[in-house]
């Protein structure tokens, strides 16, 4: 537990000092979401229809982008060796990294999302669904993403591999997250979607740190 706090504090400290690229994710999120109307044309009738989906897709991509550096800087400078040798287990490390990743990207995405929703003219009724679905969904992105980041450590085409591994796993989150917003826009009940997302979140919390730790063990050699 002390180890967990220590590790999370270190990651947050590094993020604050610009030592990691976590904040990058939000900037990417906002800029990419701002770009779409340029490309798609800002038809005021269409934007709200595609807004929820675009916000979720861009959130997915933003989370994925910030994954690659999750372990690689520790891998390159030998920190990972020392973390492995420390009394704090790799499972705790995996959890701490996912938590820190969520705090530095997920939470910021959550804060930025309503602003983008305004930009896309989403109806007020959809805001709640947007926030709650992102609150449930973004931790899954961090947890599952950790597995991918650990698996591709030191791999030759790390970036490509990571995208290939992770995006398919993200699709269910996308479907139910965007589904909840669309439902809210259309006035349908969104309970089922949120229940499914909660289930995913619990499963990820239970399994992902374990899988990440196993993957990390393979990366140390």
């Amino acid at each position, binding site marked *: 537990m002390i*180890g967990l706090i*220590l*590790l999370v504090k*270190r990651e947050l*400290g*590094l993020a604050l*000092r*610009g*030592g990691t690229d976590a904040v990058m994710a939000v900037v990417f999120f906002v800029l990419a979401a701002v770009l779409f109307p340029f490309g798609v044309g800002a038809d005021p009738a269409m934007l709200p229809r595609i807004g929820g989906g675009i916000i979720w897709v861009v959130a997915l991509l933003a989370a994925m982008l910030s994954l690659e550096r999750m372990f690689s*800087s*520790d891998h*390159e*400078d*030998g*920190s990972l*060796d*020392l*973390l*492995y*040798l*420390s*009394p*704090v287990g790799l499972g705790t490390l995996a959890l701490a990294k996912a938590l820190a990743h969520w705090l530095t990207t997920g939470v910021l995405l959550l804060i930025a999302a309503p602003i983008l929703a305004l930009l896309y003219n989403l109806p007020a009724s959809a805001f709640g669904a947007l926030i709650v679905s992102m609150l449930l969904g973004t931790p899954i992105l961090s947890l599952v993403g950790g597995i991918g980041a650990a698996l591709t450590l030191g791999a030759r085409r790390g970036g490509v591999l990571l995208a290939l591994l992770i995006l398919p796993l993200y699709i269910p989150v996308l479907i139910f997250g965007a589904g909840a917003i669309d439902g809210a826009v259309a006035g349908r009940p969104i309970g089922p979607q949120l229940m499914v997302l909660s289930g995913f979140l619990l499963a990820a919390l239970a399994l992902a740190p374990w899988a990440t730790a196993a993957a990390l063990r393979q990366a*140390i*050699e």
Partner: protein
Amino acid sequence: MQGLITHKLSCIRGERAVFTGLDLEIKPGRALLLSGANGSGKSSLMRVLAGLLPSAAGHIEWEGADISADPDAHRARVAYIGHADPLKPAMTATENLRFWAQLYGLDPAIEPALYQFSIEHLADVPARYFSAGQKRRLNLARLAAGQNSTAGPALWLLDEPATGLDPGAVSMLANTILAHLSNDGIAIISTHGGRLDELIADRADHFTLQTSGSGVAG
């Protein structure tokens, strides 16, 4: 008081045998100076002993017990210095050192450790600005931070620790190692010769890794 013993240890990297059938024995309070040509497998041996790299055959005993029986206990007794310096450029010397000390549950008396390697004036400077030797000193200060605590690591695995150090810093390192040995610690130190070897010669044995594989005790 059996110290560390390896039995017929082998290591394979990239499908090539780096060393095979290696038998070593190091008693508490002694250092082993490991030499050998470039690529002879010193670093690989260090990593195997630390439990970072799996051995291909053979086994390692600590105080008579196979280390694979309790890997957690083994990791707790290892202090490892590799070729790279695990420092975050954005963090200051104090922050870097304190993180590792706290993570290992050691006495977080950071300042004395910085003093021991004469980098106390850099305490609040981000590691980004350090010269090569200053980085190495900060990395080595981890050893000093561990030493103050009651049950610091007993097995030091130092892979060319004197790289980039000036003569003064080499003496500081030698003193740190000698203090460790006086506490019945064990140190395995890879080296290409130099002042460090001379400074700790009294308490050190020598071993040379042959590039072909097996070693020669010297």
